[in-house]
């Protein structure tokens, strides 16, 4: 009877695994379809019924996408856009980690006058949606003649109110004695921060880095408004332009999309622990 019961349990588990596995599989069908279409010749993409595995594999699409370098009136350069996305994202991730951890530490540990008021002000700005500040930032950067450089992406990008908030939460959880005993030993505040405190919040830093990476890598609206020419385009904007101009070459569009997505999938799967933790924590902001 015991065996019967375990067999039954095993079967239900298998059944549910099958059902949920199937649902998960249908959810990644758009990506599979993208991969399949990116490997087809143009005419085969719109052929019905859909052939999920193309008769004829045509990986040259990827080569074409990467080599279309601002030729003629084409307004994109995929390799250059990759570089732009990479440098903007890297600068912003590093910058926000530094500014957020410094400020988060001060808010959490140093009892300076006005810290509560300032922190409340920070919390209040978190409630204002980015769309509100978009127009003033555009006006400001055009006035400073910075539209046409990457500064409109990185000057605001190296600061993160949400990051400051998250880092403050991380530092608050560290015991006070640790800092006090170091202070008594005569250590300078910055040394304590750098040598003792930062190593203790490593996982929060990693999670924050993941969230900021993702936000910047996928940032579309800012790039659309602040980056006016193809030499500065990040991947999302390059992809948009490519899509707008390539009305028939769907295979190329799909190859471009796949080129934009695959690196992130790989980074995500490699660092999924931090990603998920960071997204759950970052969601506090919403």
């Amino acid at each position: 009877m015991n065996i019967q019961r375990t067999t039954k349990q095993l079967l239900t588990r298998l059944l549910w695994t099958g059902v949920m596995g199937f649902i998960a599989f249908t959810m990644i069908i758009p990506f599979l379809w993208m991969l399949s279409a990116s490997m087809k010749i143009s005419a085969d993409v719109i052929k019905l019924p859909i052939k999920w595995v193309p008769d004829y594999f045509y990986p040259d699409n990827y080569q074409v996408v990467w080599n279309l370098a601002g030729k003629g009136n084409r307004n994109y350069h995929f390799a250059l856009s990759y570089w732009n996305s990479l440098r903007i994202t890297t600068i912003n991730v590093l910058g926000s980690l530094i500014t957020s951890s410094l400020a988060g530490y001060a808010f959490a540990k140093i009892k300076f006058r006005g810290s509560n008021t300032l922190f409340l002000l920070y919390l209040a700005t978190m409630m204002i949606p980015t769309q509100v500040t978009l127009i003033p930032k555009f006006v400001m950067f055009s006035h400073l003649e910075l539209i046409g450089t990457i500064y409109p992406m990185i000057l605001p990008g190296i600061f993160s109110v949400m990051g400051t908030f998250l880092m403050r939460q991380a530092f608050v959880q560290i015991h006070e004695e640790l800092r006090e005993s170091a202070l008594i030993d005569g250590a300078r505040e910055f040394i304590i921060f750098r040598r003792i405190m930062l190593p203790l919040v490593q996982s929060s830093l990693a999670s924050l880095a993941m969230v900021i990476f993702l936000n910047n890598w996928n940032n579309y609206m800012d790039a659309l408004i602040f980056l006016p020419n193809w030499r500065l385009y990040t991947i999302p904007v390059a992809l948009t332009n490519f899509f707008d101009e390539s009305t028939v070459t769907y295979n190329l569009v799909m190859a471009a999309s796949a080129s934009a997505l695959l690196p992130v999938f790989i980074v995500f799967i490699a660092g999924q622990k931090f990603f998920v933790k960071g997204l759950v924590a970052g969601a506090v902001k919403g």
Partner: protein
Amino acid sequence: MVFSKQLRKDLTGYAFILPNMLGVLLFFILPIIFSLVISFTDWDFTWGIGNWNWVRLENYFQIWKDQWFVRSFINTVVLSIASVTFIILFAIVFATIIDAQCYGSIAIRLAMFMPKISNIVAVSIIWVMMYSPWGPVTQLLKTLGITNPPKFLGSYTWALPAIIFMMIWSGIGYAVMIYSAALQGLPAEVYEAAKIDGAGPIRCFFTLTIHFLSPTTFFLIVTTLISMFQLFAPIQLMTKGGPGSSTSVMVYYIYTSAFSFYKMGYASAMSWILFLLLFLVTLFQWNYQKRWVNY
């Protein structure tokens, strides 16, 4: 020079937050103030900075007479509420089943999570193709015997539901992740006791799991709603608010007013209406959390 202890603390504190404070001041607080100021003007960007007329609250009254804005506002609310409802319903069921009954739960959750980490531009482009007459969605409907499937994104009736469907698809994985994290913390003894009392898994789900997950559900409703209110990229890429105004949403209309028509004052006023909408959700969260949530 001898500093008092408190003064030294102040100086260190401000030294630590100085870079951050400057950035927040310049790129968050000043823009917020500027936005509020120009929302009371009729400023057109092409007139140059300072060349504006004060119109007081005129913009805030005018937008409600603007058919496009009203339609965008309604669409935003409909789209947000519809997607959030379905995301929550699917996610709570999926997460519970995956947690209790599935092998390879990490792999299943990761697969569902893929849309969330994908570039929204790439995702939107893929879905334009998915919905096209030769795309898989149309194909599937034809296979199911629907001879004349709608042209989703080109149809006045079907464009908004098509976008909602896509947003549900892209939002489920995140909600499943959050629910799964919450499910780890459920009290096992209560389930043991329920089992001894003869409650089946379905009974347990409705009386225990939903009850215990209510804080998470509340959190997810609020955060997902806030992010849906700010939807932009899919609309801009897939439909440009069309056909007609059938899929126009607030942020898209703010964007076109500001950056296609340069009506900065008008657009700023709309962005403050968006803020008020988000603020309402947040207020609701603060006030009703205790009443709604069963701990």
